[in-house]
């Protein structure tokens, strides 16, 4: 009797992350740990002014110090600039525009010598008038930050659909609101680090934390005076990125320029303080919202004006409106929409991309506003949201086809599991009770791209696959593994197609010289795009193997399958031959010899926005709903989040453990945004550049989680999966804000909801009530 192998699947199971064993045993060497032969260290001298002319830079003392190999200033650097608008010279020669600005850099034998050399550099400045506020920067006579843009507007976006004027006339209620969201920063555990090494032909290898390995070649090349093709990018393991490494920042070209000058490998690492001061922030935004509805709560229009504090230079922060706009125009069904955003130069630090992109900001504003509108309409938060929820196949004003979404399902699951309505009514009824601790419950939802985002001409990913004589599989992917678990998911899709165990698959990536092109790890795109490419390349290998097996076995190819390292009959699972045997037969077949080597480039069926911001830019979309139950200490103003219910449309679960980890970690980020993280910028300077004064979430602050995954089975996604990693960070903060309102009647429009802010708002509200009561008493 022949051996029989049943069909099984690895999709949706709990799978151990491929990189976990090496990381848990410290076999992994991170970029920060790397040492190359004859390597030098580098440090940057930053300004202590926020807006000033540079009169002179004297580096003679630093150059004379023993152990110093190079000192560079703007005059040593090529003219090319970096940043989204190419407005940022890596080294500043004429003037400084914000506190991060790089004046000079040193390469030396040790970091200690670098520090000593920096102290010997003398800089003379002439201070210039400063501006830190967007509205002031837009007013006439404001200091000009970027001479090429004298109106101080770095970027602006405008979108209009329908007729706002007549929609407003037809509205029974119009609700207005201002919501200002603050500065936070990534706090990657691994601080910023770059290592550059030139060869004698002028080709440079850069070891970097980039999330954008192929585009970074193009983005960095002008600042090196190099051809993009002569830049090789290697991405060693890194200690987190979360969007912070999507742009080139000055330290990377500075490191490479020093390497070129010294003809030795040069490594540059930030201190933690430098990480707080000189890495990108999340984009702060001032939202001004007007939105209308009919008496029954049906939304009629939404009109949103945004000001973005651009800081001294333009990085990805100025482009976050492309994502915010999608939330404003498409989250809930709104027939008439208008969106305007302006990013305004100031002397503040500047923002980059950050997990959730502009949607964290927009969802805070929209979901707080929606909660207020529900109250005006006299509806509970669930009924109001369901009334206006997105529906499957909906075409939004920006022409996104939402496809298989389940917005209502997310809302209902989160509400049912949390017993939302009973608790919400109960807490509301108890608001007026004179108790110190008050309980509240709140909900928020959002919509995000879940099938990539075509912000370039291509949103694709390439994959190459080979199999050896022992049925071991090597997959060379363009995707970037930064700890999120993409290698594991890619291996699962390959294992599923080829019927091989996970341990027989090796994933190779993170070197631009070997990996095929990919547009980087961002926009919740990797599982979807790289996953599809991996699945397709494995499918090609599978078909090649089955074709050969059919001719060897005389079984129809359609009735063959690959399971657990064997070729089997698909209908009954009867083993025909081991997989490695057929591979060797194919390999050593004389004139007909073939090796299994396949390639694939997957381009998702999405389109870039046109100049009017219209286009179906993602291949899939999805929603999440979060419910937060909190207890507020009305005396101290502290908010304890007791439990969070999350219901998210994930398309299909691929790696259950990895999925939970992404959702839990994403919510933790959002909790910090909501409650404690606040990068304080005072007159352009960072006032709290340490973990002591900038409070990230620690273990005791994490609430209980209840996670629900809705499987909508996306038609295009690999095995039906969608991208998932940003929504958890996006949704939680307004759920907590809405819970605070349910508990206390206090609305905080400007996160974070710190104890000081909450206690003050409660005290002011009590005082106002006492005053009102006093006046009533007098009249009575």
């Amino acid at each position, binding site marked *: 009797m022949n051996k029989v192998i049943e069909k099984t699947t690895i999709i949706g199971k709990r799978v151990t992350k491929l990189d976990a064993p090496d990381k848990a045993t410290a076999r992994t060497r991170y970029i920060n740990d790397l040492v190359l032969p004859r390597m030098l260290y580098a440090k940057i001298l930053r300004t202590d002014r926020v807006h000033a002319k540079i009169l002179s830079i004297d580096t003679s003392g630093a150059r004379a110090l023993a152990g110093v190999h190079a000192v560079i200033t703007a005059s040593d650097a090529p003219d090319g600039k970096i940043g989204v608008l190419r407005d940022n010279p890596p080294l500043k020669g004429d003037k400084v525009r914000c506190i991060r600005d790089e004046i000079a850099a040193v390469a030396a034998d040790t970091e200690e010598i670098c520090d000593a050399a920096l102290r010997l550099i003398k800089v003379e400045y002439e201070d210039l008038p400063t501006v830190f506020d967007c509205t002031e920067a837009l007013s006439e006579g404001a200091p000009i930050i970027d001479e090429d843009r004298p109106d101080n507007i770095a970027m602006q976006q405008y979108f209009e659909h329908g007729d706002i004027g007549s929609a407003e006339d037809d509205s029974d209620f119009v609700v207005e609101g201002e919501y200002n969201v603050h500065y936070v920063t990534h706090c990657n555990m691994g601080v910023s680090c770059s290592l550059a090494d030139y060869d004698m032909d002028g080709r440079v290898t850069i070891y970097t934390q980039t999330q954008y390995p192929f585009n970074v070649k193009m983005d960095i090349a002008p600042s090196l005076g190099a051809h993009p093709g002569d830049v090789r990018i290697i991405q060693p393991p890194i200690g*987190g990125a979360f969007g912070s490494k999507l742009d080139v920042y000055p330290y990377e070209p500075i490191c490479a320029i020093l390497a070129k000058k010294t003809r030795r490998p040069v490594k540059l690492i930030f201190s933690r303080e430098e990480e707080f001061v000189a890495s990108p922030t999340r984009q702060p935004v001032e939202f001004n919202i007007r939105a209308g509805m009919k008496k029954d709560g049906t939304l009629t229009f939404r009109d949103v004006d945004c000001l973005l504090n651009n800081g001294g230079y333009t990085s990805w922060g100025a482009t976050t409106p492309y994502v915010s706009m999608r939330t404003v125009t498409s989250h809930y069904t709104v027939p008439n929409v208008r969106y305007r955003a302006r990013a305004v130069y100031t002397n503040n630090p500047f923002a980059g991309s950050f997990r959730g992109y502009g949607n964290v900001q927009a969802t805070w504003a929209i979901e707080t506003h929606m909660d207020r509108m529900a109250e005006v309409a006299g509806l509970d938060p669930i009924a109001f949201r369901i009334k206006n929820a997105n529906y499957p196949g909906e075409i939004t004003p920006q022409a996104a086809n939402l496809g298989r979404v389940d917005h209502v399902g997310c809302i209902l699951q989160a509400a049912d599991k949390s017993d939302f309505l009973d608790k919400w009514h109960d807490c509301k009824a108890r608001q007026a009770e004179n108790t110190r601790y008050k309980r509240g419950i709140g909900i928020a939802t959002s919509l995000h791209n879940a099938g990539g985002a075509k912000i370039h001409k291509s949103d694709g990913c390439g994959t190459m696959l080979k199999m050896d004589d022992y049925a071991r599989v090597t997959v060379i992917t363009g995707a970037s593994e930064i700890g999120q678990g993409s290698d594991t998911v890619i291996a699962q899709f390959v294992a599923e197609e080829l019927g091989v165990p996970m341990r027989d698959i090796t994933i190779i990536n993170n070197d631009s010289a070997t990996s095929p092109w990919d547009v980087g790890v961002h926009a919740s795109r990797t599982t979807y795009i790289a996953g599809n490419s991996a699945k397709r390349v494995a499918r090609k290998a599978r078909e090649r193997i089955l074709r050969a097996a059919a001719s060897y076995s005389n079984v129809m190819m359609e009735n063959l399958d690959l399971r657990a390292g064997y070729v089997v009959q698909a209908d009954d699972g009867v083993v025909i031959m081991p997989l490695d045997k057929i591979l060797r037969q194919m390999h050593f077949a004389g004139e007909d010899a073939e090796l299994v080597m396949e390639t694939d480039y997957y381009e998702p069926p999405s389109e870039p926005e046109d100049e009017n911001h219209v286009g179906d830019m993602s291949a899939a979309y999805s929603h999440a709903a979060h419910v937060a139950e909190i207890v507020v200490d009305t005396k101290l103003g502290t908010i304890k989040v007791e439990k969070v219910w999350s219901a998210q449309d994930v398309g299909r679960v691929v790696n259950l453990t990895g999925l939970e980890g992404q959702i839990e*970690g994403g919510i933790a980020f959002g909790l910090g945004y909501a409650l404690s993280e606040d990068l304080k910028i005072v007159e352009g300077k960072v006032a709290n550049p340490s973990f002591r004064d900038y409070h990230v979430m620690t*273990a005791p602050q994490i609430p209980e989680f209840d996670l629900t995954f809705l499987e909508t089975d996306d038609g295009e996604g690999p095995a039906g999966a969608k991208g998932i990693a940003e929504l958890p960070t996006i949704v939680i903060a307004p759920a907590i804000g809405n819970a605070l309102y349910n508990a206390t009647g206090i609305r905080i429009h400007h996160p974070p909801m710190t104890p000081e802010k909450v206690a003050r708002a409660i005290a002011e509200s009590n005082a106002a009530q006492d005053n009102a009561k006093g006046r009533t008493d007098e009249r009575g």
Partner: protein
Amino acid sequence: MSLKIEISLVLNETKVEASVGVTESALELLRREFDLCGAKLACGEGECGACTIIVDGRSRNSCLTPAVDLDGRDVMTVEGLWTEKGVDAVQQAFINEGAVQCGYCTPGMIMQARYLLNRNPDISEAEIIRGLEGNVCRCTGYKKIIAAVKGASRIQEGSPG
């Protein structure tokens, strides 16, 4: 040049000697002299726990511990947990439970967890959470780390000796 001091210590169950600078931290010594890169420099001021090691049975921030203070001590780093008997129960539990994402905090977390379990093999969940307060993780939201420490205490119970 600068003053050096000779020290000897037991490092991961092996007796070693080193010549250390007076301002050198234990973290710098481990990396410079012994090529042990498990302990991470992530803040340099004792606020994040990524550099946690165990010295004479107690967890310490190696970034704040002077290297000279290791003289005569018994020092354990994450590299010392994987022996010929296999990987430590805490390491195995971190792998099994999905407690590792970027992994930069992982060596420090594992050493802190090892310390907590050495002190109290029957540790409660509340004690685990309190015991990990000084270790920052930016990726996981801590749930799977907490589950891993609980899992490790179960693996220990089940294992002989």
